[in-house]
């Protein structure tokens, strides 16, 4: 506010008491402008210029986003954000994620091949808030009722990653998806919701039965996460915050049939949205997590240096932290045998996931290594595939860290209660 505001209030010059659009309001405004000092005039002119420049930059950012020029889009959107343009930060998220997405090979499912998408299911839980609509004149802000975003990931084998055939299949797959989505009618949604609830109950029961003997394998992760998700999901009254995420890794190549079926059941409770998830800020981190897990799980990477991937990921994470989408989320820049490891924390679900991103220098033998995950409440020793670190809050000792790549023989030592440390 300018220096004259108080005086104007006292003098009654300001137009706030007048009816908007009335001659009195206009006179008061003119009087207030006449009363402005030179510095205030300059400042207000700069504000107008800044707004105009900001929105011009925003429009340019949008245009480059449309064209898929993520770097340039980021530059303009950053300028727009600096000038205080609302919405610029969201689009900056989108540009960052899209840039990350292009670093890897990520393709939609084609004719039974694996596929990757994030689903975000809005609404259907009726928590009675609809009643508020007719009650009273006061406007109530209602938080978006976003059900837990679920990420499903799996990879396309390297040999099938390119080629015209694949492109055509992609197009037809996207067309199919579009048709499917267009066909989604309201009553169908209700039916799905009812089915989802029924299945949720069933899966919860299954998960409870299976949760006890966690075997420290990929299926254990799936069961554990699925059970956690279902616990949240079926508490229908919960309004989920955007940063609550669940990661479901569907490696259909390596999972046992039972686990695959389990995952399929979980995924059948959600429906894809018509838009790609990259545009959704709340899906962004889960996309990042999934993607980077995916790089490793696939054992196949885009020809991008580890340092580039880390830089991009770090930029994205730092950005999300600034946006306060996540309370705690960081990238550990590792050394030694943990080079390429990235630790991300999904606060909403209290899940730590340590992803190890392999470099080509690791050699092909490591590309088939699975990810290493650190989860609350698990106290498993690594199994034959070296999957798990032992427990939440454990410390990975230096001797283990430098002893070699993460593998069967490299069981990290644990200091209970300590914070994980990556060397």
């Amino acid at each position, binding site marked *: 506010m300018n220096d004259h505001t108080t005086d104007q209030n006292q003098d009654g010059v300001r137009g706030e008491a007048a009816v908007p*659009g009335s*001659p009195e309001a206009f006179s008061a405004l003119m009087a207030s402008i006449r009363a402005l000092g030179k510095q205030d005039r300059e400042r207000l002119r700069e504000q107008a210029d800044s*707004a105009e420049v900001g929105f011009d930059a925003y*429009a340019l950012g*949008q245009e480059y986003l449309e064209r898929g020029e993520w770097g340039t889009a980021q530059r303009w959107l950053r300028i727009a954000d600096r000038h205080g343009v*609302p919405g610029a930060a969201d689009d900056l998220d989108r540009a960052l994620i899209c840039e990350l997405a292009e670093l890897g090979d990520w393709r939609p499912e084609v004719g039974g091949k694996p596929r990757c998408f994030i689903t975000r299911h809005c*609404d259907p839980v009726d928590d009675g808030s609809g009643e508020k*609509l007719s009650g009273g004149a006061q406007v109530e802000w*209602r938080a978006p009722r976003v059900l837990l975003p679920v990420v499903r990931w799996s990879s396309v084998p390297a040999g099938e990653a390119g080629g015209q055939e694949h492109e055509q299949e992609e197009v037809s797959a996207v067309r199919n998806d579009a048709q499917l989505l267009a066909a989604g009618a309201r009553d169908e949604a209700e039916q799905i919701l009812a089915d989802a609830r029924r299945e949720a109950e069933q899966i919860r029961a299954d998960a409870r039965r299976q949760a006890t003997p966690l075997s420290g394998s990929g299926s254990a992760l799936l069961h554990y996460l699925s059970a956690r998700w279902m616990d949240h999901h079926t508490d229908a009254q919960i309004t989920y915050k955007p940063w609550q995420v669940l990661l479901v890794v569907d490696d259909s190549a390596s999972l046992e049939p039972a686990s695959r079926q389990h995952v399929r059941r979980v995924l059948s409770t959600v429906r894809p949205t018509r838009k790609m998830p990259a545009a959704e800020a709340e899906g962004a981190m889960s996309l990042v997590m999934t993607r980077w897990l995916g790089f490793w799980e696939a054992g196949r990477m885009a020809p991008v240096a580890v340092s580039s991937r880390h830089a991009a990921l770090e930029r994205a994470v730092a950005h999300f932290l600034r946006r306060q989408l996540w309370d705690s989320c960081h990238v550990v820049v590792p050394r030694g045998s943990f080079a390429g490891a990235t630790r991300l924390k999904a606060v909403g679900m209290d899940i730590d996931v340590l992803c190890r991103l392999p470099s080509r220098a690791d050699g092909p033998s490591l590309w088939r290594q699975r990810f290493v995950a650190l989860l609350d409440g698990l106290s498993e020793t690594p199994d034959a595939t070296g999957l798990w670190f032992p427990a939440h809050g454990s410390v990975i000792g230096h001797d283990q860290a430098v002893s070699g790549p993460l593998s069967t023989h490299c069981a990290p030592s644990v200091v209970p209660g300590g914070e994980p440390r990556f060397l």
Partner: protein
Amino acid sequence: MLHRELDKKLDRFLVRRLPPNDQADVRQETWQSFYLAWTGNPEHPNPTGLLFQIASCRVADHHRKAERTPPAVDIDDPALVRALMTEVPQDRVDARQDLERALGGLTAQQRRVLVLRHIDEVPVAAIAGLMGLGVDNTKRILKLAMRDLRDSMTGYYQATARPRREQK
């Protein structure tokens, strides 16, 4: 003239984005800023857009200074349902629920355009400026959003609205 036309709309725009005590200050500062810029460039091609651009930045700046998160006016807004329900009888609870559900199926961009147009009554040209889009593109988004809403409420509109033109 411009003030008379736009002051009410600006007021409506600010009411939904700021606490009552702050609205008058931001409104005045927006107008001051606008007039000073406009008098310096009276040939400005889109003064309405400029006014709302300044207002948007002032609102964002205000929230930033107060360390508040701006209200998410574009998502699941009950007032949007009310604004779109003007033709629906109040006893049509099912239609209202349909509309709420249909709004949930729109994209964030579509909802944002609908809010700006139907609640804030911001002119399309100004909406285009605020969203970094062209005017034609904004109109298209608005049209598609309304079409999607109509499609989602087929039952109601079949009974009440005039028949839709065939698509080319």
